[in-house]
């Protein structure tokens, strides 16, 4: 050990320190990914596409031989769900018309969210480490994708936020990643909180809703959406539903465990929200 340090150790340590600082500085002062990271992403993009294509082919073959009975039962359950949702939709339409009449009576303008420009993107790679939950998409700066753009599914469920972007690729940290946090609102009670990833929940595919107001009463199944506060992300994007309510380590405050509505492992195509507008 002494001889190694005497002969080479200092040089190796110096090299490590210089490279580490360079990587950190490049990451800090760049609104997109650093040139090296961008180049690495471009070079590895075809390989990631190849991995995913092969995996999807195997999955398709596997699904083809799935149990017919299970598919029949799922089909029936989905039909029942559609019928129930159609009834909810009729009620919602009626409520909306009533809302319009009241707005007109009280001379209130409609506040709505316009998601504006959506860029479809294919998923090149799902999580590549056990310590993060991320997706790599095939769109980047050449299609005006930027860091902090939201990513949603075709149903409008929030998937995550763009954390790194290159020319033809971008990395999305999903909702359950430890580095994700965004303003959230409980749809039923309109309570505001912070939806954030937690490492002990990430392994189970869950996330946490914390910083809830005192006296908040949540029910299992309560829908949680983005609050849109601060204007960083659009409001009303579905995050997930409440699975259970727990007390934190201090025992003084409670937080909710959320189950995301988006099924990250099954995603193939998503949409990047490149711009949005709050009309009020």
């Amino acid at each position, binding site marked *: *050990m002494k001889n*190694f340090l005497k*002969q*080479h150790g200092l040089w*190796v340590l110096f*090299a*490590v320190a210089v*490279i*580490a*600082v360079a*990587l*950190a500085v*490049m*990451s*800090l002062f760049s609104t997109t990914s650093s040139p*090296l*990271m961008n*180049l*690495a*992403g471009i070079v*590895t993009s075809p*390989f*990631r596409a*190849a*991995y995913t294509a*092969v*995996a999807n082919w195997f999955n398709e073959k596997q699904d083809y031989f799935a149990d017919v009975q299970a598919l029949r039962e799922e089909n029936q359950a989905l039909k029942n769900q559609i019928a129930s949702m159609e009834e909810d939709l009729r009620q919602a339409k009626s409520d909306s018309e009533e809302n319009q009449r009241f707005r007109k009576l009280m001379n209130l303008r409609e506040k709505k969210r316009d998601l504006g420009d959506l860029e479809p993107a294919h998923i090149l*790679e*799902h*999580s*590549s*480490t*056990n*310590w*993060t939950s*991320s997706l790599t998409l095939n769109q980047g700066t050449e299609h005006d994708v930027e860091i902090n753009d939201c990513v949603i599914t075709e149903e409008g469920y929030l998937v995550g936020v763009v*954390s*790194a972007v290159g020319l033809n690729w971008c*990395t999305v*940290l999903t909702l359950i990643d*430890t*580095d994700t946090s965004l303003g959230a609102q409980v749809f039923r009670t309109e309570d505001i909180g912070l939806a954030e990833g*937690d*490492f*002990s929940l*990430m*392994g189970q595919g869950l996330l946490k809703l914390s910083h809830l107001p005192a006296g908040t009463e949540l029910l299992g199944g309560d829908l949680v959406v983005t609050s849109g506060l601060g204007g960083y992300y659009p409001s009303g994007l579905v995050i997930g539903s409440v699975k259970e309510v727990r007390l934190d380590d201090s025992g003084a405050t409670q937080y909710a465990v959320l189950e995301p509505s988006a099924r990250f492992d099954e995603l193939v195509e998503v949409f990047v929200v490149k711009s949005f507008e709050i009309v009020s």
Partner: protein
Amino acid sequence: MIGRSEFYIKWLLYGAATFLMLLLQGFLLQYLRVFGVMPFLYPALAAVLSMYEGAFGGTVYSLVLGVLCDLTLPGPIPCFYTLVFPAAGLCAGLLSKSWLPAGLPCALAVSVVAFALTGSFHALLLAVSGKAAWAAAASTALRETGATLLFVPVVFLLFRKVYRKCHIDD
């Protein structure tokens, strides 16, 4: 001792072997779940090569591998693998020189050390960022180590082949 051209050929072969292992990781291992996690070959690559090439060569290789990982994998900080892999390579090189001769048992042992370092660093960064989850981190690190050790023999055999090809006279 090998000549200059043999030196370049050796590292070219190690590069090709590393590339093969990266393809294995990308095409197969990242879609597998063993003990609930995916096998993660990168720390094992740094450790096993360092076992053969010693502290200096192993540390430099691990540094390069760490930089590549930082450029292509998401991490808690921009230089995560750049910092932890050279440390793992150094430990592996020193252990194989002084404690256990290079071979499959040593490859498994140094891989465990590499994963211990990587997992500890992950857990430490979580704690520093106010999101401490020691139990979950330990569980993930242990399962990741167990899942990857099943594939370390493949890495060992490949790197041993390269080492023996290039060190015939040793």
